[in-house]
């Protein structure tokens, strides 16, 4: 049975006249990796801030871990782990000190604290760097340090806001491995990203946000199936035109029917960016 670990009903957040989140209805199921995809400014971070009790919604109902965020925020705080987009560690302390701080905030006693810190450091392969100041670490290590800090109280759901921004390819893949491992070990993951390949690589289901609204929600493959699994790009009047086809045969016969003067024909698998383009008429990053 699917259990909603996150549930929102008509969630709306206004900043003055701007609707950062507009009537969001969302269910995230226990045990899944759910991805929130969309360009910068689409409302992803605001949604995370509301779900993690940092921002008060203007309107609507939200429950996380079965608790109403307005009625029982302290209970919500016990079941969530949050890794923010920007580094939120005390950079004048070591990794171990930062971890100890988080463990204390969650009232984890001395011996349990020590055990979990050592275990988690091992888990993310940071043991040998545990006593280094956060400021002296690489970007990937800082991110992993931030993640272990958010895991000390064994949250049911882990929020990752743009977890791989600014990381090189190697560090990014290492982080993906970690996210998958955490999910296998039972943690529900809610992540936001504006990297298409990240959403495709990690997420069981993806919601696409645009101007504060959820414009598509499904498994990446099913979203692609809806528009067509094959994309054909052609250059028309110096603008790229995207057309979608159910399979390669259909795409091929379309390309053969094009006038020979048609420039730059690319036939490729469709992706979530195509879904976004098809739904909005914009490319990710345009907004």
């Amino acid at each position, binding site marked *: 049975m699917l259990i909603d670990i996150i549930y929102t009903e008509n969630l709306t957040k206004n900043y003055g006249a701007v609707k950062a989140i507009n009537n969001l209805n969302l269910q995230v199921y226990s045990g899944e990796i759910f991805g929130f995809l969309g360009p910068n400014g689409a409302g992803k971070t605001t949604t995370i801030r509301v779900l993690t*009790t*940092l921002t008060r919604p203007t309107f609507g109902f939200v429950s996380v871990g079965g608790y109403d965020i307005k009625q029982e*925020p*302290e209970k919500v705080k016990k079941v969530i782990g949050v890794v923010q987009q920007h580094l*939120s560690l005390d950079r*004048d302390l070591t990794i171990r*000190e930062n971890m100890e*701080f988080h463990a204390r*905030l969650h009232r984890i006693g001395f011996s349990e604290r020590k055990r979990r810190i050592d275990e988690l450091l091992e888990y993310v392969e940071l043991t040998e760097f545990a006593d280094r100041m956060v400021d002296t670490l690489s970007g990937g290590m800082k991110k992993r340090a931030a993640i272990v800090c958010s895991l000390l109280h064994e949250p049911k759901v882990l929020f990752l806001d743009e977890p791989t921004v600014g990381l090189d390819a190697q560090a990014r893949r290492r982080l993906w491995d970690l996210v998958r491992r955490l999910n296998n070990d039972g943690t529900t993951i809610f992540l936001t990203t504006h990297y298409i390949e990240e959403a495709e690589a990690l997420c069981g289901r993806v919601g696409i946000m645009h101007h504060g609204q959820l414009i598509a929600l499904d498994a990446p493959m099913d979203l692609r199936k809806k528009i067509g699994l094959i994309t054909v790009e052609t250059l028309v009047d110096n603008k790229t035109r995207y057309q979608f086809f159910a399979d390669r045969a259909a795409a091929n016969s379309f390309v053969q029917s094009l006038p020979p003067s048609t420039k730059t024909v690319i036939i490729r698998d469709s992706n979530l960016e195509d879904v976004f383009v098809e739904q909005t008429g914009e490319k990710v990053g345009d907004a």
Partner: protein
Amino acid sequence: MDAVYDVYSVLWVDLRNMRRHWRSTVATSLILPFLYLIAFGYGLGRGINLDGVNYLTFVVPGIVALTAFSTSFNGAASKLQIDKFFYKSFDELLMSPVSLPSIVIGKALIGVLRGLISSTAILIVGLYLTPTLTIGPLFVVVLFVSCFVFALFGVLVALVINSHQGMSTFSNLVILPMTFLCGTFFALSQMPDVAKAVLYVLPLTHSSQCLRAAALAQPFPWLSLVALLGFGASFFVGSVFALKKASI
């Protein structure tokens, strides 16, 4: 019991931080009051009498009060601002199960500690220069209360003001004039009534009145102590309210 543990957890990280930087922290918070003590007290004040007492004796409790004030205020406010804007770690506190009142008290305590260290250091030098001061339990209590009130003031201001620029403007327009005017360097009896009325709505005035009365063994202004406690309570409530407004 949980609340005490939480308050200590919030303070713990600031203590760790201070342990790493304590030399520069203490030195910077002592330099200005030390200069006041030398220039106004030892240099200028040895020959002057004010309200029937030697000026040096008069001014030392005032300088202790202003040291408690500026160090507690800045100690609490600057660390909170760093957490908010530089480390961005303040959100971590808000997302933890620690209650908002515990966060406010915990963040104030680092200011209290720094205020007590600095004002005690100044007091020791002051006592060496003018040994006639009486430092009893009442003085100690007032000093502690003052540091707490000023640290809570710092927490409130740091929570409400959302930029470094705003913070330094506030420091220059409110904090700096207060250190000079609130009965620290001169007796309020010398001021016109309008000025007195204004100065009595500022917490430092009450702190310096109380500290001076205690140190010079004059009749103690209990009403000022009550006023000081009232300021503390309103800064505390204001801070909790500011946090509540921002998060859930």
